[in-house]
């Protein structure tokens, strides 16, 4: 069966009535001429009425229907009476259904120049709004925590335990790997410089102080931001999509108390423990490098013990607490403010990680400056 090319012709130069004769097979692959071309012809003729005649029409599919629908819509805007004649039965019915409802005219959207996202005013505005939002969120969480300590909050202990388990033991493997490697990196860094002075033994001091004060807690926090913070955002975002958060709110339960507080407390509980674990493994990693440079394990341990001070441990643990709060705030806030679509949940998870890492680095710098000034 060979297909005839789809064609149309305008017949009758009568100003009042013109007929549009459709011939050939209007099916996919035949590429009938676009409506735009026909629209020009029609505009020049501008008849009072247009009748589409399908007597010589072959086979047809949605292409024909799309063409007829456009004819109909165009005629309607131009005040031309549009009719169809001798069409297959299906075409009649489908056109009737398709034209039963007036097309919707969507409100015009402001189209912004894409580079405008880089405008400094806009960026500052976004940052300022983000800071305001985070501070507001921290406020809400503080109120919820105050209610918790007075025993009034709707926070479930089982949730807290579950999140502790997710955040803690499940993260052991990845934390072990990163901390040993970071310890080794610190070891190598120091070894190269210190060996120039014959002071290889001080690698132990560098690793201990570096891990305790800075790297142990920072690396743990980055891993937790990617692992736990993103998970929180995705969980809460999905709950938002499923209207679970609406259900919680209408049950008279504060979503912050019910969802955010257990997650944040779990992180506050787990982060210091993971940090101590990471510090220990980092020191072991540094020891491996030191061993490779001819420092005996006993020497390394003795030197490390001498370098270890409670101040450093305290600084690390304090940072762990601050970071835990920041990761939980970034993750939970992104999740609770998430939109209600799969794309929005993905965006929420991305936001959670990016915000958390920015917060971490800014907070780390701030804490270091404060301690420097206080000579701690």
């Amino acid at each position, binding site marked *: 069966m060979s297909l005839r090319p789809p064609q149309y012709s305008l017949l009758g130069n009568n100003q009042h009535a013109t007929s549009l004769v459709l011939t050939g097979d209007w099916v*996919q692959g035949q590429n009938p001429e676009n409506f735009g071309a026909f629209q020009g012809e029609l505009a020049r003729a501008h008849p009072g009425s247009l009748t589409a005649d399908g007597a010589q029409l072959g086979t047809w599919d949605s292409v024909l229907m799309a063409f007829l629908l*456009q004819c109909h819509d165009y005629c309607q805007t131009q005040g031309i009476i549009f009719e169809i004649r001798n069409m297959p039965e*299906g075409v009649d019915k489908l056109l009737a259904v*398709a034209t039963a409802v007036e*097309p*919707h005219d969507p409100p015009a959207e402001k189209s912004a120049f894409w580079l405008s996202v880089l405008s400094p005013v806009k960026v500052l505005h976004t940052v300022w709004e983000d800071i305001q939002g985070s501070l507001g969120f921290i406020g809400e969480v503080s109120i919820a925590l105050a209610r918790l300590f007075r025993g009034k909050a709707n926070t479930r202990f089982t949730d807290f335990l579950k999140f502790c388990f997710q955040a803690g033991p499940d993260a052991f493997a990845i934390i072990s790997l990163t901390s040993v490697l970071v310890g080794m990196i610190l070891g190598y860094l120091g070894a190269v410089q210190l060996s120039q002075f014959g002071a290889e033994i001080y690698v132990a001091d560098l690793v201990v102080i570096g891990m305790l004060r800075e790297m142990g807690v920072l690396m743990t926090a980055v891993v937790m931001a990617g692992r736990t913070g993103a998970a929180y955002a995705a969980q809460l975002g999905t709950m938002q999509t499923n209207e679970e958060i609406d259900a919680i709110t209408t049950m008279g339960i504060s979503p912050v108390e019910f969802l955010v507080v257990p997650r944040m407390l779990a992180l506050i509980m787990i982060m210091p423990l993971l940090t101590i674990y990471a510090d220990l493994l980092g020191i072991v990693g540094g020891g491996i490098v030191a061993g490779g440079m001819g420092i005996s394990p006993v020497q390394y341990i003795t030197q490390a013990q001498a370098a270890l001070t409670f101040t450093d441990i305290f600084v690390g643990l304090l940072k762990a607490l601050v970071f835990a709060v920041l990761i939980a705030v970034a993750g939970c806030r992104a999740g609770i403010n998430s939109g209600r679509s799969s794309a*929005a949940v993905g965006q929420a998870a991305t936001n959670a990680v990016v915000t958390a890492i920015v917060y971490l680095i800014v907070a780390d710098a701030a804490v270091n400056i404060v301690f420097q000034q206080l000579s701690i």
Partner: protein
Amino acid sequence: MTEPNEQPAHIEVRDLTMAYGSDVIQHDLNFNINNGDIFVIMGGSGCGKSTLLKHMLGLIKPSRGDILYNGTSFFQASDSEQGLMRQGWGISYQSGGLFSAMTLGENITLPLELYTRYTTAEITDIVAYKLALVGLGGYQSYYPSQISGGMQKRAALARAIALDPKILFFDEPSAGLDPISSRLLDELIMQIKESMGATVVIVTHELASIFAIANNSVYLDNNSHTMIAYGNPADLRDNSEQPIVRQFLTRSAAADTKETP
């Protein structure tokens, strides 16, 4: 037009047993769906209606038995044959199944781009036409989250008919819609079905829909885990030997509601 009776049934379900592990949902289902039928799968909640639909769609493999489309087994067909069969299907899922990260226009454009030889300009026109068919003309640039539930159902229908399918599957099309919208959706399904000449398979327990549109049906029983009635729903309501089926179709609580003639 070919007579429906002259060719093998459009869809044949043969000795189908569906089970999750050792948990048998339904066993020994046997029924035919003819060309041009509007076929309803009905039954109480949890009897396996949606599971049966998922088997028919090839999303779940049957533990025993087979499903034939135009005489060809779906599950014994190769991947590419299955793909070809699926191109003839239009499916509207229970919660719409619209891709939430895409606009309505993009949702309908996707299957057209993947499976047809239409040009880009034609696709734009066809998308406008399909949306107009379901009364959503002009909504191309809206995201599913920006429109109401009823509109999402209709948009899902527009995507289901994008490829001018031979078979349309609906999972609870009118669930969650008000009576008027749900009637309009029924009418829309009827009109589109009649003008495109498709076979329609619907999972539903909306009695009004069942009597308004269906000409054939199967009732899945929750207790015996098999089908206990098969035929025109109006006939079943008046003449079924199974009290539970009459009860279901007349929406009554009593065990036996057969009216005295």
